[in-house]
């Protein structure tokens, strides 16, 4: 049997980076082939070559055994290659059916769109996926998970035989993940080949047949998923064995209070939140999606200020009406969406590191001391091990993990005492994750007060000294670090008026 897709000796160079080094990859019909590797390993680049976004500098691509040229995304679609992007590419104000058929609307005379046929076609595809979504619903009204399903439906409408999924579960909860996996299983049995990019080991083992690991732009190996231990896959990814160290919970009884919230309210999203955070403490903030964790972080930071309640920093009440107030009080916030809220992508590492502390490098008339700034930026590149050709590199050209480190450097330079990390390792690979964890522990040891929001319970358990759990905008309880997962879940699903 010939392979559905075969990529041989794919080469790709960008200015200053050898992104793909003679990479081989193949996909059979009806298999799920996981593609793993640290950020910057070349997974996304390889997939962009396969989906016609990038042109390879060398090597060849065969589909059904015949060599093909993919000069653009349209050509890849015509060969049956569909890609589900990490960032959803849907038009929120159009309906599900309109999104699925965008660019290929069934026509009537005089350029009118055949809405009936369009909706019927969409219904058929959604039925094939066992999805009960009305094709006339505007996409913006669906959950992220459902939007992702619409993306998949759109890809299927192109009669795709190859589906590329880039971290499809990043924004999904367990029930939604199960729904997605059921769809993947159904597609696989129809003979669709699926390339699955993810950092989550348990998912890979649950659904994939084979795993290809990449590192530094080269393929390390392709192995069968069933009989390869997780530790082996991880060591292939990072090139070394990882040790699982659990954070010891320090005695903080004598530590000064860094942050205190008293009866914080905002609309229906935050209801009567109170807690204290000591210096040197890492407080995990757990909860299901929509529990109000990000909303709480943004309220503390003044991005969307609270309506009522008091925020005390080091025992003194502060009025936080805007992020500038929070930063002045020594609070820094690392958003879950770095590209949108954390970075100026077109500007260089140096400018981004300095974004919150520019005045410190300014003379009286407002000129910037570039030499000092460059020294400081290069210092952080070294201590945080940011992989970049230099401090003048535009941050949009860095991988996700390195972009996250640039944001961390920004707040370290500002010397914040309270740091709020919202999903600090989202989209970050295993090796870089361990580095971020180490960094958080070091910061706490230096007396910073840290709040970590994470949807991955193992991450919370590994980092947090105490775990605050939210549900529907309320703080349902605070547990000691290392608490049982069942206890956390009980609090995360505890509705108003229910006994624990």
């Amino acid at each position: 049997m010939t392979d559905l897709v075969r990529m041989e000796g794919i080469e790709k160079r960008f200015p200053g980076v050898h992104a793909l080094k003679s990479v081989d990859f193949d996909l059979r019909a009806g298999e799920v082939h996981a593609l793993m590797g640290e950020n910057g390993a070349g997974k996304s680049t390889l997939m962009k070559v396969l989906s016609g976004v990038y042109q390879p500098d060398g090597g060849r691509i065969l589909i059904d055994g015949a060599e093909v040229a993919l000069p653009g995304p349209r050509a890849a679609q015509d060969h049956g290659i569909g890609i589900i992007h990490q960032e959803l590419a849907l038009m929120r104000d159009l309906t599900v059916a309109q999104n699925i058929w965008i660019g290929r609307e069934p026509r009537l005379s005089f350029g009118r769109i055949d809405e009936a046929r369009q909706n019927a076609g969409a219904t058929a595809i959604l039925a094939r996926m066992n999805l009960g979504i009305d094709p006339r619903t505007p996409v913006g009204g669906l959950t992220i998970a459902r939007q992702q399903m619409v993306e998949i439906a759109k890809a299927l409408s192109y009669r795709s035989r190859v589906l590329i999924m880039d971290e499809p579960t990043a924004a999904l909860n367990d029930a939604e993940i199960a729904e997605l996996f059921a769809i993947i299983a159904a597609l696989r049995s129809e003979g669709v080949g699926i390339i699955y990019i993810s950092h989550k080991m348990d998912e890979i083992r649950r659904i994939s047949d084979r795993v290809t690991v990449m590192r530094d732009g080269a393929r390390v190996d392709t192995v069968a998923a069933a009989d390869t231990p997780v530790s082996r896959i991880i060591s292939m990814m990072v090139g070394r064995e990882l040790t699982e160290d659990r954070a010891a919970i320090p005695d903080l009884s004598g530590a000064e209070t860094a942050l205190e919230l008293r009866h914080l309210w905002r609309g229906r999203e935050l209801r009567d939140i109170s807690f204290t955070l000591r210096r040197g403490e890492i407080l995990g903030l757990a909860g299901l999606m929509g529990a109000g964790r990000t909303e709480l972080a943004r309220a503390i930071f003044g991005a969307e200020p609270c309506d009522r309640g008091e925020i005390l920093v080091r025992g003194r009440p502060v009025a936080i009406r805007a992020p500038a107030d929070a930063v002045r009080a020594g609070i820094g916030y690392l958003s879950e969406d770095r590209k949108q809220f954390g970075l100026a992508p077109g500007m260089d590492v140096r400018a981004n590191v300095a974004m919150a502390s520019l005045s410190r490098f300014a003379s009286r008339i407002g000129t910037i001391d570039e030499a000092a700034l460059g020294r400081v930026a290069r210092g952080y590149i070294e201590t945080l091990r940011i992989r970049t050709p230099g401090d003048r590199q535009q941050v949009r050209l860095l991988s996700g993990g390195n972009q996250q480190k640039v944001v961390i450097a920004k707040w370290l330079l500002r010397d914040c005492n309270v740091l709020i990390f919202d999903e600090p390792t989202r989209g970050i690979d295993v090796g870089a994750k361990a580095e971020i964890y180490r960094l958080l522990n070091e910061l706490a040891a230096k007396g910073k007060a840290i709040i970590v929001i994470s949807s991955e319970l193992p991450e919370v358990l590994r980092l947090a000294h105490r775990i605050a759990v939210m549900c529907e905008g309320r703080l349902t309880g605070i547990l000691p670090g290392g608490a049982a997962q069942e206890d956390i879940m009980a609090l995360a699903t505890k509705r108003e008026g229910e006994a624990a």
Partner: protein
Amino acid sequence: MTGTEAQPARLAPLLRAGGTHQKLLAFASLIVLVLGFSLASPRFFQVDNILSILQATSVNGVLAVGVTLIIITGGIDLSIGTMMTFCAVITGVVLTWMGAPLLVGVATAIATGAVCGLVSGTLIAKARIPPFIATLGMMLVLKGLSLIVTGTRPIYFNDTEGYTEISTGSLAGKVLPQFPLPNGVLVLFLVAGIVAWILGRTVLGRYTFALGSNEEAVRLSGVDTAAWKIAIYALAGGICGIAGLLISSRLNSAQPALGQGYELEAIAAVVIGGTSLSGGRGTILGTLIGALIMAVLTNGLRVLSVAPEWQTVVTGIIIITAVYADQIRRRGSV
């Protein structure tokens, strides 16, 4: 990095801040235009004609430099043409009607522009009115105010000694009699130099680029984005006031009906110079070259006796071509 690299590195940010290729392209087009017109007509490359091109560049150039700041933040200012006129009118009121000394008039022009910019900036940053709408409104308000204040009649500066010298006099001519560069051109170079310095060297400049690159990320870095944005519009407004001085000095009068249309010429110069209308990218050098291209084109076509209506058509085509070339360049360097 070692100390020996510090010297070139000092100039680099002024030149690097985006669009180097576009500037080369724009500069090459400028050379080609000048060469072409020189070959086509012996009257083109004469000292008198070159001086009149530069003189013609000065007003549009100053306006374009100011609006470059705003466009880099991702905004737009449609009111600069009528704002320039309004500044000239208020200066006329202060100098001619109230008999204030020349320097007070100069300060008035700049302050009037800065206040107008402050108003636009506040509408945009605080009231969150889109820049296009806010400045469209300001354009009409200022146009009307100019006509109201003057009673639709021009104000002449005959009583203020030395007022026309601001634009048409030539300090340079005292040093270099063969090439009496008008003062207006010196003012343009001075303004351009200062703004380039602000963009490349200062906190204000850094935030100008940062706002255009990702405003929300800047706000979440604890920067008071509204205040900086207002400051940028006020600065651009002050520069507009300088343009008002230049044009009223050249005409020896504040013409209240003048002004509308200048904003589009200035924006065209900025775009030809490689500044991105979506913000985050742009240079003053590019804008200067863009303004020169516009002036050379207008002048050259006139020297070749091309009908004015065709001059307009050609100018339009040049603007579209310049932006198209920029698009092609960007597609090539993803």
